[in-house]
């Protein structure tokens, strides 16, 4: 084989290996969740953001995975993503619609609300067309009561908010069956769910902050910590703080 042929063979072989490695890497990583950009919607130093928990993800190829959804600020529809952007040094008013059923916390310490305004969250419950009055709650006992379904935590900002769950056996047995849950319910109109609201202030400088759930809710995986617990777009995500 001539020298140019040898060099060409080597180059082609090298490029083939590189392409194979890249293909495997990107296949494992998969497509990243879309970013819901709330920054342009901030007014007077505050921005409102709405999230949802759903007991399944029928809009994905993992229909039995529990997941968060985020409302698209432009369309008002809930998208299957956990990435959102907010401005720096801004009060973020969060609403979480909790459509999943209760699960006891593995560590009860995560039942305490921390890092948000007043260290409390306001909780109301919806069932059969009725919404209860909001109650301020600072601590949940998820072992004695069926009270928590997931948590919304940004550890590096000291934020931990338990997401209240529908409080009765009957409600937990009648959770929504398709996701996102809004507008996809049985003939009762809307499935039972909690409405959790709280506020926190973003840091003064830009940065990326991971957020996660502290209830291992990846059923079927090692101690519940695989699957949706460890996959962007399901039970963990990122908050981009824009300068």
């Amino acid at each position, binding site marked *: 084989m001539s020298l140019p042929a040898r060099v060409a063979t080597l180059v082609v072989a090298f490029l083939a290996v590189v392409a194979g490695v890249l293909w495997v890497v990107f296949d494992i990583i998969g497509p990243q969740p879309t970013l819901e950009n709330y920054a342009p919607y901030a007014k007077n130093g505050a921005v409102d953001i709405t999230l949802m928990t759903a007991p399944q993800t029928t809009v994905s190829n993992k229909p*039995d995975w529990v997941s968060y959804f985020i409302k698209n600020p432009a369309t008002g529809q809930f998208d299957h993503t956990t990435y959102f952007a907010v401005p720096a040094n801004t009060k973020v008013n969060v609403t979480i619609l909790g459509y999943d*059923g*209760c*699960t*006891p*916390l*593995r*560590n*009860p*310490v995560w*039942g*305490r609300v921390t890092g948000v305004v007043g260290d409390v969250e306001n909780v109301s419950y919806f069932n059969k067309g009725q919404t209860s009055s909001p109650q301020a709650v*600072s*601590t949940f*006992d998820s*072992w*004695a*009561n*069926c009270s928590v379904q997931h948590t919304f*935590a940004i*550890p*590096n900002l*000291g934020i931990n908010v338990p997401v209240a769950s529908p*409080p*009765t*056996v009957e409600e*937990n*047995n009648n959770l929504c069956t398709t996701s996102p849950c809004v507008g996809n319910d049985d003939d009762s109109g809307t499935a039972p769910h909690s409405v959790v609201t709280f506020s926190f202030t973003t840091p003064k400088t830009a940065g990326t902050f*991971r957020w*996660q759930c*502290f*209830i*291992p*809710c*990846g*059923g*079927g*995986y*090692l*101690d*519940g*910590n*695989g*699957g949706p*617990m*460890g*996959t962007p777009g399901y039970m*963990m995500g990122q908050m981009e703080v824009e300068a």
Partner: protein
Amino acid sequence: MAVDTSSAGGAAPVPVRDRRDALWLAGIWVVLSIVCCFLVALVWGPHMPPGAQSTSAASQQFDIRVLGTIATPVILGVFLYFGWAVTFWRKRPGDETDAVPIHGNVRVQSTWIVVTSVIVLFLAAFGTYELIQPAGAGGGEGPQPIWKPPGTTTSSITSWTPGTSNILQIQVIGQQWAWTYRYPQFGGFETTQLAIPVGEPVQFNVTSLDVIHSFWAYTLGVKADANPGVNNVAYTTAYHTGDFQVRCDELCGIWHGAMYDTGEVLSVPNFMAWTKATAIKMASVTKLLPPYALTYDPTTIPAGPINQALGLTSAGGGYYNPADPEQP
């Protein structure tokens, strides 16, 4: 080439030029070693990791200084010989002669065996002493530690007074993906903040609620694996106040790299004030925690009536539900 026929051991004669080279090499090596050993031990040494913030950190830094000082002549010898060979012993243009045949040399071989044996045996003895002397050198000693800080006892795990022999107990709990810290001698509160008092021996009881983590307070020189169902004990005593970094040192999932904290060494009065304030702040959740134990089993929780009605007799996690099609 001039040849000296007086070589020992009956080996092949040593060329005079090679003997001259050997003398030069040895002379340069000795001088460089003396200078560099002093520099490594006395100039670089005090700045070596992990610093000297605690007994265990200072002990580790001392060990690294000793090892670095011993390694310096070895490294210098290797590089000096390499440089000398490349510079002076390389093949010259037109030189087609063979090199001098290599034969065994009893004196060289004996010296090599004795010197390396002495170094290895010294390091084994030194390492063992350094592991014992500072109570495990900050490493996790398992549930029943052999080496404890001298003069300390565990006479009470429900109260603690500064300046007594009763050692301060701090439980480190790993979970994906955060550390929490429990203080059994101050009412058993649990918090995400780690604070220790200066000058007081501390016993870290390290465990995990899920997978294997590793508690690494590296500027304190403390490192202990956090295994579920196991209590891993490590000791240290802080020398001075200030911050220290805590990291997870065992790959534990997607946010392993974000599992870090900043701890704080406080003066004793400030530490006592901090424990008092934190106990009050965490009181509402402290009463919901399981009784203090060295390990915890989330599968055996005291489930309430609604949880039981829903079939929830353990904390979230699934624990390999055999009916789940995605069981790994």
